[in-house]
Structures are given as C-alpha cells and as structure tokens.
C-alpha cells in the first residue's frame, strides 16, 4: 500500500513539474518581458541591466530551476495590473471558486444519484429512457450556454433568482446549475451501469432471499457498493469543474479564480495567468490523488500491494 502511495505521489509531482515546464516555455515564447517593463526611450544598456536584474541572462536550465524553486514557494511574481503577488491574488479568490464548484457538484449529485439508481432499477422504463435522452441533450449543451439560458429565462423573464454576483445563497443557484450541468449526464450513465452490475450480483440475490425490503437493498446496500465508481466520478468532475468554472464565472460575474485569470489574459498580466494555470494543475493532481488513495478505505477489497 505504502509503495503505491509513494509511486502515485511521485507521478503527481512529475505531472506538476510538467505543468510548470509548459508554463515556463509559454512564458519564453511570449516574447521579451523586459520590453513590456521598460519605457520606450530605454537604451540597450538599460535592457541589459534589466535582464541581469531579472536573471534573464543566465542559461535556460538555470532560469527554469529558479522558476521552479520560486514556484514551489508560491512566488510567480507580482501581478502587473494589481501590483500584488499573483498567487496570493488567486488564493484570495479561491474560496469563491471552491464554493461554486462544490455547489455545482452538489447539484450534479442531487440529480445524478436518483436518476442513475432509478434508471438501473426500472431498466427500460420511462425514467431510464428519459434519463437517456436527457444525458444525450445534456452532453451537447455547453455549460456556459446553459448559464446564459438560465439568465434569460429564470433571472430576466421570471425574475426568480439573481443573475450576477456573489452574496446570498440565491446567487449561488444558477451558476451551480450551469456548472453542474455537464457532469449530470455522464454521472447518471456511470452510476446506472454500476448499479446494473450490482443488482445482479450474488449478495443482492442473497439479500432478496432473506427477505430484506427492496428499498433497503437498493438504497442501503447496493448504492453503497457503487461508491467506488461514484467517488471516481466525483473526483474527475470536481477537478473538471474547477476548469469549467473559468467560463461559468465569466457568465455570472462570479468573483473567483477563473474570472480573474480570464481578465488577466486580456490585460496581458502574465504572472496571474501562469499562477492560475499552475494552481489549476495542482488542484487537479491533488484531487485525483485523494480519489485514488481513498479507494482502499471505501472498499477494503481494493488494496494496492
């Protein structure tokens, strides 16, 4: 088990290092950062001095090493626009994004768990067929468009819920639906096929034979055995939602990490963009790591030796 943990942590570290390499290369491709910092009338000598001050005259390998060791301390430089450390800026906005992603996940689960279980139990029935059609449509509708539709029809036409900003619980509803929209379809299908397997297994037959009520069999015993695929999905989609939040936050003017990074792209505020990409990669890797390591605890039959 511990060897498995070590190798997974190692893989995660390599992935983050790779993400840092991508960011570093992109930064170098983007052109001369010094040109942006110095005034128009700067001389060649000013350029050389500035380069030396920034360490840009050193070999690329050394520069990369410096970049990585700074990044490890969360130092991506100051935002050009906000004149504050880029990573700090994003960490300040992380709670808003996490709140949105968790709400989106809650919405997705609230819909997908009953739909998936009922589709399996009443296989071929109207719930199953309805869920199938819903899944097909759902996967073809981009979340940001769902968000726009929600604003048009729920917030503007019906005036039920606020469309923009963060504050009360009511502000959270529409963005959460838009963000949780996409995973619902995939989660429903995965849970359905997991439940179909479980409902045909020996222990469910045994539970039926000793006369347990069907409702208890489905919701207490069978669903618990679907926990592993469910947790996998939660991990995958929670990580994806943090990425999806980049667009949804713009749609709903949600003051989170995503919107800040999008604005930074327009302002050519590279440190913030870089910090944002690395932050996203780190969260993605950590969430997946937690998911992988949790299997052994959820289902003791899975032990990685």
């Amino acid at each position, binding site marked *: 088990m511990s060897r498995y943990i070590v190798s997974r942590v190692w*893989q*995660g570290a*390599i*992935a*983050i290092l*790779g*993400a840092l390499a*991508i*960011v570093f290369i*992109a*930064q170098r*491709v*983007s*052109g001369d950062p010094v040109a942006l910092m110095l005034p128009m009338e700067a001389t060649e000598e000013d350029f050389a001095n500035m380069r030396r001050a920034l360490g840009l005259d050193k070999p690329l390998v050394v520069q990369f090493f410096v970049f990585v060791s700074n990044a490890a301390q969360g130092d991506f430089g100051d935002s050009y626009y906000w004149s504050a450390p880029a990573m700090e800026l994003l960490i300040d906005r992380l709670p808003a994004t996490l709140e949105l992603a968790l709400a989106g996940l809650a919405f997705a689960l609230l819909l997908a768990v009953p739909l998936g279980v009922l589709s399996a139990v009443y296989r071929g029935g109207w719930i199953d067929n309805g869920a199938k059609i819903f899944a*097909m*449509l759902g*996967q*073809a*509708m*981009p979340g*940001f*468009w769902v968000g*726009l*539709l929600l*604003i*048009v*029809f729920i917030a*503007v*036409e019906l005036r039920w819920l606020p469309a923009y900003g963060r504050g009360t619980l009511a502000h959270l509803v529409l963005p959460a639906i838009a963000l949780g929209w996409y995973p619902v379809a995939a989660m429903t*299908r995965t849970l359905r*096929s997991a439940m*179909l397997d479980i409902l045909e297994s020996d222990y469910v037959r045994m539970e039926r034979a000793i006369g347990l009520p069907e409702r208890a069999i489905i919701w207490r015993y069978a669903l618990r055995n679907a926990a592993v695929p469910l947790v996998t999905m939660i991990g995958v989609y929670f*990580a*994806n939602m*943090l*990425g*999806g939040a*980049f*667009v949804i936050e*713009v*749609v709903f003017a949600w003051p989170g990490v*995503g919107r800040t*990074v*999008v604005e*930074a*792209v*327009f302002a*050519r505020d*590279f440190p913030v*963009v*870089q910090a*944002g*990409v690395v932050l*996203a*990669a780190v969260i*993605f*890797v950590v969430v*997946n790591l937690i998911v992988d390591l949790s299997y052994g605890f959820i289902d003791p039959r899975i032990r990685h030796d």
Partner: protein
Amino acid sequence: MTDVSLPLPRSPVAALFARLGMLRGFPIVASVVLSAVVIAAVLGPFISPHPADAINLRDAMTPPAWEDGGESAYVLGTDNLGRDILSRIIAGARVSVVIALYAIVLSGGIGMLMGMTAGFFGGWIDSVISRLIDIQMSVPALPLAMLFAAVLPPGEGMVVVIIVMTYWTWYARIVRGDVLSLRERDFIALARVAGVSTPMIFIRHLAPNLLNTMLVLATLQFGSVIVFEAGLSFLGLGIQPPQVSWGGMLSDGRNFIEVAWWLITIPGLAIMAACLASNLLGDWLRDTFDPMRRQV
C-alpha cells in the same frame, strides 16, 4: 468427410438487405443535421439570405419571424446592428467546420503517430510518451487554453493550436492501447520476420487496423471541438470579430440578454445541434464497428 454444401448464390435483393442490415439504427436525423452544417459551411455565401455582416440599423433587434414584430425577411431575427441571424449562423458554420477539420486532422495525426510509436516500441519510448500524456492530461484544458491565448496572437490558428494541444492525448491513449494488442498478432510478427521496415509496418499493417477507431474518435471529436471553440470565442479568446463564430455571437448577445432572447438562444441551438449530431453518429459508428464495446 461429409460433403460440404456450397453456399447458395445470394440474390441481389438478399445482398441489398444484408447491406441494409449493416445500417441498422443509422441515425438519419443526426446525419441530416451534420450534412446541413457542412453544406452551410461549403456553400455559405451562396445560400445565406443576407451578407453576414450587412448592417441595417432600421431593422435592428427584429425578433424571429414567428414572434410579434418579426419579419419574413429575417427568419431568425436580427441583432443590435440589424444583421441577419440566419446569415450569421451560416457564416459561423463555416468557421466551426474549418477549425474542426484542421483540429481533427492535426490532433488525430499527432495522436495516432504518438500512440503507434508508444504502443509498438514499448520500453522507454512508451514511458516517455505515456508520461507526456499524463502531464498533458493533468492540466485542465481551459486554464491551459488561457495560457496559450495569453502568448499567441489570437485568431483561427491559435484556436487550432489550443485544440490540438488538448486533444492529441485522446487519440494517443486509445491508439496506444489498440497497438499494444495488435503488435502481438501473427501478421505483425510475420511482417517483421519477412523484413518489412518499421515505417512500412506502421503504414501498411498498423494504420489500416486503426482506421475504424480513428473514424469513431474523429466523429466524436467534431462535436467536442465545436463546443470548445465556442467556449473560447465566447470568452473573447478565440475567433475575433469581424469574423463570425457561434461563440462570438453568444458573447455579443450577452449584452442584450434582457431584451433579445433570440440572440442567446439561436446560436446555442446551432452549437447543440451540431454537437448532438456528431455524438449520435459517432456512437453509432462505434457500435457498428466494434459491437464488443456497445453499452448495455
């Protein structure tokens, strides 16, 4: 030995039925929708009722023809500058299809080559490529797209680069898996014994066996690329005005979200229809080529 009865010669009618049997469950509506998108992309200017960028302020914000105040000249209504929505949808189809084609050919090509190389040679080459795929997949697509959007000049080229960077792993992973099992098969071993060069094995013996997989993946990717491109253009990071794109139309329409629902609804429906059609066709192709993977 009992005598072996010769198979009866098939009548042309039976042959036709056998062939139709292959088409069972063929998604007709999806194919029609997909063809319509491609035809709109190819014929664009010839079939659109108005020039896509013709400004006509007197007719600005005309709702679709079936609404009160709609005009038959503008079936799907007009935007804030009086530009015809239907014509812009047709123009947007062209951008979407062109980008999707480039993106699919490039990401499919790169992914296939990487997957074949990794699967065929194994060893450290496989390790390097697999790690590369892992790394690529551990950075969520949209943040990565932000990074490229920040450093590359905006426009179609950038969108294609971003999509290729995101999607090649998709092909590479699946092709690698297929090749891992293919290379153990006798015909590959025989080709090697017969002294066929490695590039020839790739081209003549591996690639033809991957065509089905590639076709399924490419069809499924079409819809996925359209949604991805729309997202980028919606954020203002993809296709730049005055070029028309469905995502850009949504972004423009957002400013009038309180007064003109059709500016938001119609481009989204176009995205959804194209994506849905490509998913349905892709699923059908997968089930037809590979009945083992069919879902319950």
